[in-house]
């Protein structure tokens, strides 16, 4: 309350209704450099914009000039991080889930983002579509069929050990030869990777940013969440490092996904229409995706990103409904409930961070996924924050944690379940045998209207990339403009094009995409520390909001 009064005395009123602004000398945009290049204006943060831009160029250059060395260094780093720190990733992710669940049930959940009287900017449909499309849409397209299948197969295969160390990839104790048990374990393990944990990771980052921006009046950048810990030092080099790291992870995360996505979309187009698989097709695909994303960012949050996200979710829902009806409907419905129960049942064992025997699964799958989600969290979290003003913390956590998790259970049950049913009941193994990018299409092949549904599948893959690319460009633009959401439009166009250009350069270099993706996932380690600190900051921030009431 004291802070609020001080702010009022300085002529700074509170947000809509009771809240508790942070008193800081920092003026948003004070470190920014404004100017223009020809007719194009810019308004960028110094040093975050130049340093992150130069670092991206330097890393791309390094990968191109010394591909073997870069590949070796990054894959060593990747292995060291996901294998050496598996306990840390697993333990931290558990903390994020528990933290979020506690926010739902404690009075802290009553705090409203943007002040007690704030009204939500977006209705449920648009809001949910945007957070889902940015969060994991594209992964669901590729892993919806393949992951349940992988865990099912490895579980059926049972365990194997060499010198007392497990060499198989099965989760937990496997389920050798028992189809029903292997299916339950496979579904539980898949949902574990796409359910509460990843969404808790996103929710923590999003909540921290939304709270410190909308309720505390700090700039909408990652560093603001650290004000309770570092005080005004966040406006100095500590904050520069945090923000630069976030830009770096976001840009490379997007560019490498875009590169891989183009190769995957190319494989799908080849399967359907015989389009040749080569780098020319892939460069055209990246250019097309970047061009659509560019139109979307130029049309803005409401006119571009939101509309595309809604179209995407609509299409995805149609495809889901189609597979549910055209596939083994009753089996899928019962699998959904079964999987949900299996998830809850296996959750304690799957999330156990220490003393795991299934090392390949817990390090190669779980630890990899957690590092991956965490390296994406600055981008997805910041985007979710941008569109979540006006929600109460309880509503926010329920909608960002529980509902997406349930949708993932449904999606995995329907897509993975149909493919599993094809193997177990029909002996159709084309989806099981196909490469990752073709599994979805092979599964759709034996359902009616395969031509149309496969086309919807390809459109979904491409549009999901567009919705990641456009929202990512907005996020990078905001961070590199020191938290300004009204920086000149050419700037967001620059990041969108830059990201496409980096993807093309990496695609054309041998091994560039995979080695840089390993490097990006490795940034999950420092960000895990960042996220743990954020939990503490959120707690401090919410407690001071409660006092303000």
């Amino acid at each position: 309350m004291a802070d609020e009064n001080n702010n009022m005395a300085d002529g700074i009123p509170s947000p809509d209704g009771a809240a508790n602004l942070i008193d800081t000398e920092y003026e948003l945009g004070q470190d920014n450099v404004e100017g223009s290049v020809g007719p194009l204006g810019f308004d960028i943060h110094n040093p975050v914009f130049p340093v992150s831009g130069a670092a991206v160029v330097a890393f791309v250059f390094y990968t191109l000039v010394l591909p073997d060395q870069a590949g070796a260094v990054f894959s060593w780093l990747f292995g060291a991080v996901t294998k050496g720190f598996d306990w840390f990733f697993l333990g931290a992710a558990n903390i994020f889930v528990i933290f979020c669940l506690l926010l739902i049930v404690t009075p802290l959940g009553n705090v409203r983002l943007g002040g007690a009287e704030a009204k939500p900017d977006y209705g449920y449909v648009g809001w949910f579509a945007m957070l889902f499309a940015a969060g994991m849409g594209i992964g669901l397209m590729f892993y919806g069929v393949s992951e349940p299948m992988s865990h099912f197969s490895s579980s059926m295969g049972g365990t194997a050990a060499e010198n007392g160390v497990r060499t198989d990839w099965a989760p937990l104790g496997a389920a050798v030869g028992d189809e029903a048990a292997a299916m339950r374990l496979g579904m539980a393990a898949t949902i574990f990777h796409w359910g509460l944990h990843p969404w808790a990771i996103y929710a923590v980052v999003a909540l921290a940013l939304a709270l410190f921006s909308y309720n505390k009046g700090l700039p909408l950048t990652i560093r603001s969440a650290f004000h309770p810990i570092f005080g005004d030092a966040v406006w100095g080099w500590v904050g520069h490092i945090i923000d630069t790291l976030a830009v770096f992870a976001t840009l490379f995360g997007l560019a490498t996904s875009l590169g891989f996505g183009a190769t995957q979309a190319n494989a799908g187009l080849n399967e359907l229409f015989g389009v040749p698989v080569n780098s020319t097709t892939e460069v055209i695909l990246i250019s097309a995706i970047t061009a659509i994303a560019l139109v979307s960012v130029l049309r803005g949050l409401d006119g571009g990103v939101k509309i595309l996200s809604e179209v995407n979710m609509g299409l995805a829902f149609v495809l889901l409904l189609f597979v549910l009806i055209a596939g083994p409907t009753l089996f899928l419905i019962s699998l959904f409930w079964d999987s949900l129960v299996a998830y809850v049942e296996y959750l304690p064992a799957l999330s156990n961070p220490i003393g795991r025997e299934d090392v390949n699964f817990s390090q190669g799958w779980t630890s990899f996924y957690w590092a991956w989600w965490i390296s994406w969290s600055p981008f997805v979290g910041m985007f979710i924050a941008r569109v979540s003003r006006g929600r109460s913390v309880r509503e926010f956590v329920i909608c960002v944690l529980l509902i997406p998790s349930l949708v993932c259970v449904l999606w995995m049950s329907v897509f993975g379940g149909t493919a599993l049913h094809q193997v177990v009941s029909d002996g159709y193994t084309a989806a099981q045998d196909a490469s990752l990018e073709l599994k979805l299409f092979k599964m759709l092949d034996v359902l009616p209207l395969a031509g149309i549904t496969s086309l919807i599948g390809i459109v979904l893959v491409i549009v999901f990339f567009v919705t990641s690319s456009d929202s990512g460009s907005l996020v990078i633009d905001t961070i590199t403009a020191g938290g300004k959401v009204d920086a000149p439009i050419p700037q967001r166009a620059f990041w969108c094009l830059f990201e496409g250009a980096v993807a093309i350069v990496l695609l054309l270099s041998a091994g560039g995409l995979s080695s840089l993706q390993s490097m990006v996932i490795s940034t999950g380690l420092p960000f895990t520390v960042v996220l743990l600190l954020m939990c503490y900051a959120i707690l401090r921030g919410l407690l001071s909001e409660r006092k303000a009431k």
Partner: protein
Amino acid sequence: MFTKILVPVDLAHAEKMDKAVRVASSLAQTYGAALCFVGVSSDAPTSVAHTPDEFAQKLSAFAADKGAAYGIAAVSEAVIVNDPAVELNHALDKTIDGVGADLVVMATHLPGVSDYIWAGHGAHVAAHSKASVFLVRD
């Protein structure tokens, strides 16, 4: 001839608005028209204000200040959008209709960052608005 004059202002560059404000005030005095300042902002903190409320208050203070300086009654209209860099034109179109303005007086060609953007906004409003539009070059 005119009954309501609308003046879009960019509070981040308030000092650059003087000429347009002077023109609008003298036109308002000449025709006995009401004067309304409109500002568009985001609900995320900006360099002008930490919150939408604060933005509205600063805009209102700006209007009162200019009104007093030129001896005329002026009101303000704060418009909050999700993505101001992109939605400004549309927000201005809507506000012109919403307040029933019959003349828009607008500063254009601010130097630096706003140069590119604002020139576009003036041209857009002139092309799309039913009201008369007076673009004041800096």
